[in-house]
């Protein structure tokens, strides 16, 4: 896949928690498309309506917000593992998912999987795997922070048990300890570049050196916590600097996401290549999508606002 000028995809980022400054910086760094997995928003939800409005916002307003910066926004729909533990609510959410999963730009069921590996988590994980199969959508799996190795293996076992092809499942938040098994079993293997708790990007360089690019994906998983919305382009630059071949970098930071999520039929390179990009330098164009002009410039040397 030719990639010139440099384009990146962040296939796992929670933009509802990010500012317009992030969008500006991401666009400037070459990010052309993002996937926003449905996840936990920090504060536990207690009502079905909050889920409904959250899902609506990731197919609605957030999509619009991204478009203002020339970034194509996609999402995944699913009940995350933490909130699967509120069983009464989880039961209701299961009825809501099909209402969203068939919408434009929904590229997978996700992120689903394990947090503490409770019985409730497993139950709703399995139900959603069946939904993905029925809806013919890929799956994005969140692997747990604690007891990661076991949780990752178990997640893959359950996918196989439900008849899902590993080629249609992305296992996310991998590290050096889990990578080999996930790759060997034929699943897409995603790495979250998350300075403190997950992978730093120096470690990602070593992964690329060791395993190459086949079925390997980098993402930021940036959210409401301390995280870096530019993790993908930064990692790409670091890999290039460290002598990783350009084709490898391109696959890890762009092309593989298209291959994995393109299986939904909802994630096509043409969508963002054809996208009309707003001229962010325009102050007034009879078109103030960007209220009052362009996105705020984080450059402090520009004092006039």
């Amino acid at each position: 896949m030719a990639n010139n000028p440099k384009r990146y995809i962040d296939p796992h980022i929670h933009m509802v928690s990010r500012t317009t400054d992030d969008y500006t910086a991401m666009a400037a760094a070459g990010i052309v498309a993002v996937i926003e997995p449905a996840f936990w928003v920090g504060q536990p939800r207690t009502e079905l309506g909050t889920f409904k409005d959250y899902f609506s916002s990731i197919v609605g307003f957030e999509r619009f917000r991204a478009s203002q910066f020339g970034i194509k926004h996609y999402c995944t729909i699913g009940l995350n593992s933490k909130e699967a533990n509120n069983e009464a609510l989880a039961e209701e959410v299961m009825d809501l998912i099909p209402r969203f999963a068939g919408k434009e730009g929904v590229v997978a069921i996700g992120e689903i999987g394990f947090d503490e590996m409770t019985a409730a988590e497993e139950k709703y994980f399995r139900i959603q795997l069946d939904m993905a199969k029925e809806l013919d959508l890929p799956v994005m799996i969140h692997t747990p922070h604690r007891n990661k190795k076991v949780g990752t293996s178990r997640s893959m076992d359950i996918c196989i048990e439900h008849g899902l092809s590993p080629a249609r499942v992305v296992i996310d938040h991998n590290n050096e300890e889990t990578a080999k098994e996930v790759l060997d079993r034929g699943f897409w293997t995603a790495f979250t570049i998350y300075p403190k708790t997950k992978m730093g990007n120096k470690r990602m360089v070593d992964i690329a050196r060791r395993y190459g690019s086949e079925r390997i994906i980098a993402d930021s998983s940036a959210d409401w916590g301390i995280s870096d919305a530019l993790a993908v382009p930064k990692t790409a630059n670091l890999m290039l600097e460290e002598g990783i071949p350009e084709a490898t970098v391109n696959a890890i930071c762009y092309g593989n996401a298209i291959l994995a999520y393109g299986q939904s039929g909802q994630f096509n390179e043409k969508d963002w290549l054809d996208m009309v990009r707003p001229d962010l330098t325009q102050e007034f164009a009879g078109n103030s999508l960007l209220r009052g002009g362009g996105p705020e410039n984080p450059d402090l040397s520009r004092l006039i606002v």
Partner: protein
Amino acid sequence: MTPQKLVLHWLKGRLSAADLAWLEEKSTLLATGAADKDVYTAYSSALRHSGKAPLELAPADLDSAQAASPGWDPSDWTCEQAARVALLLALPPGSKSSQLMDRVYQTADVGEAVALQKAIAVLGHPEGHMARARDGIRSNIQSVFEAVTVRNPYPAMHFDALGWNQMVTKTFFVGVPLHLVVGLDRRVNPDLARILNDLAHERWAADRPFSPELWRCVGPHADARALEDLKKVLNTGTPLEQRAAALALHASPRTEAARIIYTHPELAEAAQTGALTWERLYDGE
């Protein structure tokens, strides 16, 4: 032809036989009473059968649209919007269906929301769509706001003055060309003229530009302050602003307006003869 038949007729030449058959089958299902769940999924899946190509209707088709439903202008519709609207038109008109549409709207993605708002141009039971249309005016999503505002006869036909004035005023904040608003000249009113004249002063004070189309809503109800402003724009504005001021003054019934405009005889004459109109305001820009 009914709007629904017309929409299906247009899609006939543009969709594959299988996709058209899907749409017709779902339309029949929705017409004869479908579960909410089936309506949600049919409305969401429509895109997979329609694609997003522009409809590009011929002038004769646009005439048929007008004949089928007054003020209906689908000249910028896409196959996606037509297919979604065909489904909405299949639902039996009435409060039950419009409440169902409210629920569809609540969880709509951007494309679905746009089609729902465009649909109110032709849907029956207009009062059932009022709250949703007003909600579209509150939307910060440009395409949703435009779906209500642009080439849509619903607001001029059904909005009260508060909603109408809010919509027209917001076009100046989000940059929608005013001449695409249907029924504008019919719905000008003194409140709107004052609100927009205030807005012009705000923008001048902030040294920020605004579309000279603003004066279109001020002219017919221009008070003494507005006439002073229009005189200033006529004398010192850019050529585009001068043309707008001339048109606004021409629309004022006040004799003072006539006196002002005749200080620029060539513009006065252009406005008088129709050589200059709001639709042609930007010609030569």
